[in-house]
């Protein structure tokens, strides 16, 4: 497999893909009659120009790190978990039920419980697709897509029938008790006597996301289970021959993946909205796919890609605020990133590989099959 240096595989190919996506995005902005340089200026200023902007960027990045990790863990076992959206939706339900169940005295008690609630419900929503893939061979992509839509319907139903307090018009749950309020970056800054991040949503979940990334790295590269997941993902027959049970790997990997997606709700539902609202996930489940692809399914890459997408979403919101460019521009950029780093990976990789091969004067390149 060592046809090109590792740095080229890990850095050069994604960077070229990103550059292509950026150039096309610039063309799109030009096409709708706006100035791409100016647009980028608004985005940078809005996302990184103030501590408030930074806080929003970090808040979105937290979501994408969770969903990116969720997609990545499944990727390592060659499972394409497209159900992050539904799993995070259900995670939100878990977090909300936990937060509403007790009059929490302090957030340090509420947080672990909410983590358990979110992860359990997220994992639970991945359980049936995992079982169907492992035992009955139903395609995980199709079942997880179906489960996304079932999750949306379920949450709307529950919000309208039971979770919504009597007499309230808006379909959302009651507000969480004061003791379930997670400290925001503003609160944390105030502890050390700094005034910053005014009324912005980033909160301690950010550190939870960093911990989760470290945990995923430990799991995948430092434990026997992680080895089995990766071995199974590289080659199912080889894994089977080595005595790895496909059922076990599929089930465990999908449960971890769903749990990570569910954890995202700690940030959005508990940290930001402080009640369960409809559509609390806002595409983060899908953005996780782009984040995992961009980050090459490595936790460190996912942190960086999560930050990039956090910047894009926050910058895009600011852009829409100051110009007539709608926020949907971000969806287009995201689509291009997924397209170039995921589907058209070989288009970038093959010429780069050829270039390196020519320099080394080795045998002509053989096409690699992309990671599934």
């Amino acid at each position, binding site marked *: 497999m060592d046809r090109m240096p590792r740095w080229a595989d890990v850095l050069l190919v994604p960077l070229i893909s990103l550059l292509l996506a950026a150039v096309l995005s610039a063309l*799109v902005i030009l*096409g*709708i*009659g706006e100035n791409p340089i100016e647009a980028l200026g608004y985005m940078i200023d809005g996302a990184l120009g103030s501590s408030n902007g930074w806080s929003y960027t970090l808040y979105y990045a937290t979501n994408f790190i969770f969903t990116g990790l969720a997609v990545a863990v499944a990727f390592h076992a060659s499972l*394409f978990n*497209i159900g992050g959206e539904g799993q995070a939706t259900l995670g939100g339900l878990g977090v909300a039920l936990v937060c509403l169940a007790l009059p929490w005295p302090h957030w340090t008690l509420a947080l672990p419980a909410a983590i358990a609630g979110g992860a359990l419900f997220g994992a639970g929503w991945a359980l*049936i697709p995992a079982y*169907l893939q492992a035992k*009955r*061979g*139903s*395609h995980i*992509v*199709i*079942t997880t*897509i*179906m*489960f996304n*839509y*079932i999750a949306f*319907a*379920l949450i*709307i*139903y529950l919000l*309208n*029938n039971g979770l919504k307090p009597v007499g309230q018009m808006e379909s959302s749950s009651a507000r969480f008790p004061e003791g379930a309020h997670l400290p925001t970056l503003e609160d944390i800054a105030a502890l050390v006597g700094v005034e910053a991040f005014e009324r912005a949503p980033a909160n301690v979940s950010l550190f939870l996301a960093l911990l989760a990334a470290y945990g995923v790295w430990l799991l995948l590269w430092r434990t026997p289970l992680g080895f089995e997941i990766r071995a199974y993902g590289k080659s199912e027959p080889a894994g089977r021959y080595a005595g790895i049970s496909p059922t076990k790997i599929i089930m465990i990997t999908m449960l971890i993946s769903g749990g990570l997606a569910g954890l995202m709700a700690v940030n959005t539902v508990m940290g930001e909205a402080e009640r369960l609202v409809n559509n609390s996930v806002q595409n983060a489940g*899908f953005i996780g*796919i782009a984040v995992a*692809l961009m980050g090459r399914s490595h936790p460190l890459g996912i942190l960086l890609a999560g930050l990039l997408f956090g910047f894009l979403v926050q910058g895009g919101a600011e852009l829409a605020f100051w110009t*007539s*460019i*709608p926020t*949907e*521009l*971000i*969806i*287009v*950029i*995201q*689509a*291009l990133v*997924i*397209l170039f780093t*995921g*589907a*058209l*990976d*070989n*288009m970038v990789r*093959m010429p780069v590989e050829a270039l390196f091969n020519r320099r080394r004067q080795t045998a002509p390149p*053989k*096409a690699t*099959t*992309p*990671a*599934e």
Partner: protein
Amino acid sequence: MDFATLLQILDSTIRLATPLLLACLAGLYSERAGIFDIGLEGKMLAAAFLSAAVAFVTGSVWLGLLAGVAASMALSAIHGLASITFRGNQLISGVAINFLASGLTVLIAQAWFSQGGRTPSLSGAGRFSPWEWPFAEAIIPVPVVGPVYSELVSGHTAIVYLALAMVPISWYVLFRTRFGLRLRAVGENPAAVDTAGVSVVGLRFAAVAICGVLCGIAGAYLATSLQAGFVKEMTAGRGYIALAALIFAKWRPWYALYACLLFGFLQAIALRFQNLDLGLFVVPVEFMDALPYILTVVILAGFVGKAIPPRAGGQPYVKER
């Protein structure tokens, strides 16, 4: 429920099943050739937008239809390039296409019409008009047959009849022509087709192109027939329901018709009754909305007849050296 209500529900069943059927048959060609396509939704959306935009600007629904098909074909070309030429992951490519369409349609609509990401309402020659069959008016007084003929059979737009006609045509093309045989073979065992000296790449691109055309018509139908103009995310998951119908139909044209009629019927019921009171208990509208997906999971689980996809589906074909 009286006869008139039943007729109305069946009538809207046909209207609602039409885009599903076209998209489902689109997916059928593609997946039979071994190219998974979860980008049906995106192609329909792009076609819906461009058909509405062009129909509004030119005042001709037929030009709109052409433009819609062109938009869908363009996305199909990207999918073909990614999954056939560059042997990329077909599922990821499909996801990207859905996103691309979802973003670009609103972006362009906003830049073009400045109406919050929608097109202006279509009227007159900008929409498909219902096609009245002969004697539809005259026959109404005849009991049962009259209303059925004039309400159910007559009075749909041309695309509805086209979609229905596509079912036997697809069956014939796939199961009675050489092209169809090869197309199906390429989804089962591309190496054998290659050995026989037939181009795998060519066949797969042909299948993806047919898929683009059908999705384009489905999208144009949404914006110029079912509704009068494009609104943001107007496909509302229909591409995924079509995918569900395809699995339900076990990748066969006639079954696709039945599956789409069933799912169309569910949508018609949900639209008309909201919460369905069955006497013993009330079925919430959310459950009706989720039912196609739930049924598909049940089918996928193999408890009610096993759905076996084409064997080479999702795998890029690498010619041996």
